[in-house]
């Protein structure tokens, strides 16, 4: 009997390698768990019946193109779309023997922080089904937390891997921009989008990053990793300089329980041998969110122009020719959040506003990158809460876009600078998981894995949601 609630990917790989279970048996065990628990949670949009690899299974966020398997990005406008090619990350997983378990739910076009923006209904948090799993990779986070996949891939533009990992009590990595191919990924904001692993442990996270990372000739923004990915083993932090940016740790809206656990984890860094000091990101946090909400929608308005009903996806015809078809298809196919962002981006890029909005936001981006670079002169990693709050209730922020945007206030600044960030669970507040964010310089994933792994061992967080035990 395979306990999918507890099995890590590393343990699964070991079982398969020692031939104690077959790939097909493992695949079936997860599908049985899905049948048992996912009617409630709705973490999957669809599952794949047969194992197509000889290794362990994996779940993909539904914006990763999978040949022959419907890929919707959580949108009605892509309903019924079946890719004729695999994304590079899908190819790499296949080459590593991983079998596709299914495609996970997400906020439409990765726009959201709760998975409530999915055109196919929300995913619920395995720790408390009255609450959201975070987003936009909420389906992947919930699936891993509830033992419905040993690991999963998500995507992170403003915090869409780190924040749901935090809210579901799992590990999530947003890699350095350019280290994981975006070929075959449904695009949202191309200068920010990154695919990232979502796992039960930091070691699993490193293993999956090793599989998907590296230069891809099909994505010219990718680069070769400067050093091989190391699977972390060290459990001390001797010699590591940990910086605590004041603005990220004292931001408005951080819940007291979140603050307390973060402080305790920072203290733990010290106990494990790290040098801990305070630092500052004076403008990155205050201006990060407004900067993001100009840059990302501007890029989205361009990327989402391709959905016109002509070549794939939904088509709604009027009586008045091709223009009416475009307009009606887009009005019927997009939900409110993509519409808001397309309009915001179109406005920010339009004549007369470009310099004041988009141009200025690009300069703020330089300021943010410079501030982080300055902090990394003195520190190896920067730490903070991942999300200001634990998982919130369904519907709580659904009618107020600005309140929802604030969910990513702590993850956005480093994303604007293309930096890697790791979220690990650091404890429970009121019975709900709290995530601890580790940010490093570009290409410092090995350091993040080392620090994350040492903390994970010292914290001893039990990743299985209490109500499922």
């Amino acid at each position, binding site marked *: 009997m395979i306990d999918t609630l507890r099995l890590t990917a590393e343990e699964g790989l070991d079982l398969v390698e020692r031939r104690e279970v077959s790939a097909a048996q493992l695949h079936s065990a997860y599908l049985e768990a899905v049948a048992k628990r996912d009617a409630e949670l709705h973490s999957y949009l669809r599952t794949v019946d047969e194992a197509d690899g000889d290794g362990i299974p994996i779940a993909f966020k539904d914006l990763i193109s999978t040949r022959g398997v419907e890929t919707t990005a959580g949108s009605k406008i892509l309903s019924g779309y*079946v890719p004729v090619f695999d994304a590079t990350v899908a190819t790499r997983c296949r080459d590593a023997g991983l079998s596709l378990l299914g495609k996970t739910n997400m906020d439409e076009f990765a726009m959201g922080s709760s998975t409530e923006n999915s055109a196919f209904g929300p995913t619920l948090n395995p720790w408390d089904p009255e609450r959201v799993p975070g987003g936009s990779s909420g389906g992947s986070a919930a699936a891993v937390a509830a033992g419905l996949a040993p690991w999963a891939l998500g995507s992170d533009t403003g915090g869409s891997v780190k924040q749901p990992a935090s809210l579901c009590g799992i590990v999530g990595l947003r890699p350095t921009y350019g280290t994981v191919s975006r070929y075959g990924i449904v695009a949202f904001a191309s200068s920010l989008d990154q695919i990232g692993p979502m796992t039960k442990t930091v070691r699993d996270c490193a293993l999956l990053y090793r599989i998907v990372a590296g230069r891809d000739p099909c994505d010219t923004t990718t680069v070769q990793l400067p050093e091989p990915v190391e699977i972390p083993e060290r459990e001390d932090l001797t010699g590591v300089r940990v910086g605590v940016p004041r603005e990220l740790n004292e931001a408005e809206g951080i819940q007291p329980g979140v603050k307390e656990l973060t402080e305790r984890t920072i203290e733990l860094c010290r106990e494990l041998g790290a040098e801990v000091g305070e630092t500052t990101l004076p403008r990155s946090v205050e201006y990060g969110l*407004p900067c993001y909400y100009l840059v990302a929608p501007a890029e989205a308005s361009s990327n989402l122009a391709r959905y016109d009903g002509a070549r794939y996806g939904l088509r709604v015809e009027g009586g008045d020719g*091709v223009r009416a078809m475009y307009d009606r298809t887009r009005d019927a196919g997009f939900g409110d959040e993509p*519409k808001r962002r397309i309009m915001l981006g179109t406005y920010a890029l339009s004549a007369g506003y470009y310099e004041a909005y988009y141009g200025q936001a690009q300069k703020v981006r330089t300021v943010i990158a410079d501030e982080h670079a300055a902090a990394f002169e003195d520190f190896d990693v920067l730490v903070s809460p991942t999300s200001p709050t634990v998982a919130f209730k369904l519907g709580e922020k659904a009618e107020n876009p600005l309140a929802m945007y604030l969910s990513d206030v702590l993850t956005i600044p480093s994303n604007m600078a293309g930096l890697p960030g790791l979220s690990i669970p650091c404890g429970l507040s009121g019975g709900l998981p709290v995530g601890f964010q580790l940010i490093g310089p570009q290409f410092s994933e090995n350091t993040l894995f080392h620090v994350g792994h040492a903390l994970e061992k010292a914290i001893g967080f039990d990743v299985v949601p209490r109500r499922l035990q």
Partner: protein
Amino acid sequence: MAITRDEVLHVARLARLELDDEEVEKFTEQLSAILEAVAKVSELDLADVEPTAHPLDVLNVWAADEPRPSLSLADALANAPEREAGFFKVPPA
């Protein structure tokens, strides 16, 4: 910075979205609030700062000029809502 109803209609036209009256009203209100929040970037004097379009310094990435297989016509048209004689078919302009 409030956005007017007329501006919302103009932007919707640019973005090829046919919004109904209810949407126009809702988006006018929501976009005004969002624009007010993001206009914060204009508080900073950044006249001497270079813009960042892309987080990595990657320049002039060339692909080898070698032919390789591309999608077949059947694959390219596989998801078309309507097709005819090897083309995507759309209503007349």
